[in-house]
């Protein structure tokens, strides 16, 4: 069974959704037959390239509130993430344009490390408060087994631009406006970070249909 997941590495609900899907897979008896493919989605393509701004400041600007109001906004998501074992650190998280990160993720996919790379980049951004510049992206790619010289080459060029755009276009064709969203066997869609039970039901439904 093919499970495609549209996600952005700065998306707190995507990381939560990833954990909930993983929980569902531990109870799914055909989990060994599931192939997960990560697809690119940019939450905010208008974020300038090479701009690294604290998330609290970026959100305060975007929504016109104070930093304290932004802290309150993020607190609920942080609390739900804790329940999934994810210790978000919004106070140190840095906003950045994720297009190059997605190009790097396509390189990682070529090396069979698409899932590991997605996890590593989300962890770096949402939990470790990393500044996701070129040097950091190369280091993170190396950590999941992507050769550093290849990672740097991709980031220095425009390689995989077409692949990222194709993923985003496919999301638009489905009519998706948010992430995460999950497509099972190109037949069933699940929007958002649903409870693990919903993912388990969806996996079971898709498996029965394809059996």
């Amino acid at each position, binding site marked *: 069974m093919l499970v495609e997941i549209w996600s*952005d590495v700065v*998306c*707190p*609900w*995507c990381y*939560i*959704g990833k954990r909930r899907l993983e929980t569902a897979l531990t109870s799914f008896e055909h989990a060994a037959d599931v192939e997960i493919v990560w697809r690119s989605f940019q*939450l*905010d393509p208008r974020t300038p390239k090479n701009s690294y701004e604290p998330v609290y400041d970026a*959100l305060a600007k*975007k929504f016109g509130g104070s930093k304290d109001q932004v802290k309150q*906004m*993020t607190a*609920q*998501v942080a609390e*739900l993430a804790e329940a999934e074992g994810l210790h978000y650190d919004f106070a140190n998280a840095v906003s950045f344009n994720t297009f190059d990160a997605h190009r790097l993720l396509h390189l990682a996919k070529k090396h069979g490390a698409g899932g590991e790379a997605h996890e590593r980049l989300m962890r770096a951004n949402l939990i470790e408060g990393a500044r996701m510049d070129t040097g950091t992206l190369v280091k993170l790619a190396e950590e999941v087994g992507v050769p550093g010289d290849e990672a740097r080459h991709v980031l220095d060029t425009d390689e995989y631009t077409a692949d990222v755009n194709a993923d985003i276009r496919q999301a638009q*064709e*489905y*009519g*998706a*406006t*948010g*992430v*995460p*969203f999950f*497509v099972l066997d*190109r*037949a*069933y*869609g*699940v*929007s*958002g*970070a*649903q409870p693990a039970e*919903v993912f388990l*039901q*969806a996996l079971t*439904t898709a498996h029965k249909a394809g059996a």
Partner: protein
Amino acid sequence: MVEIDFEPPAAVEDSPEVPEVTPAEPLKGLIVLGSGDADACSDGNCF
């Protein structure tokens, strides 16, 4: 005695077809599973 020109209602099978009310389909071409209001980052807003 006044005669009323009464026209009986049309038979059910002659009634115009009432379109079924279907919920909006958020993902085109897919069968949507789960609730439609799950937590997600939408239009750049996560909170």
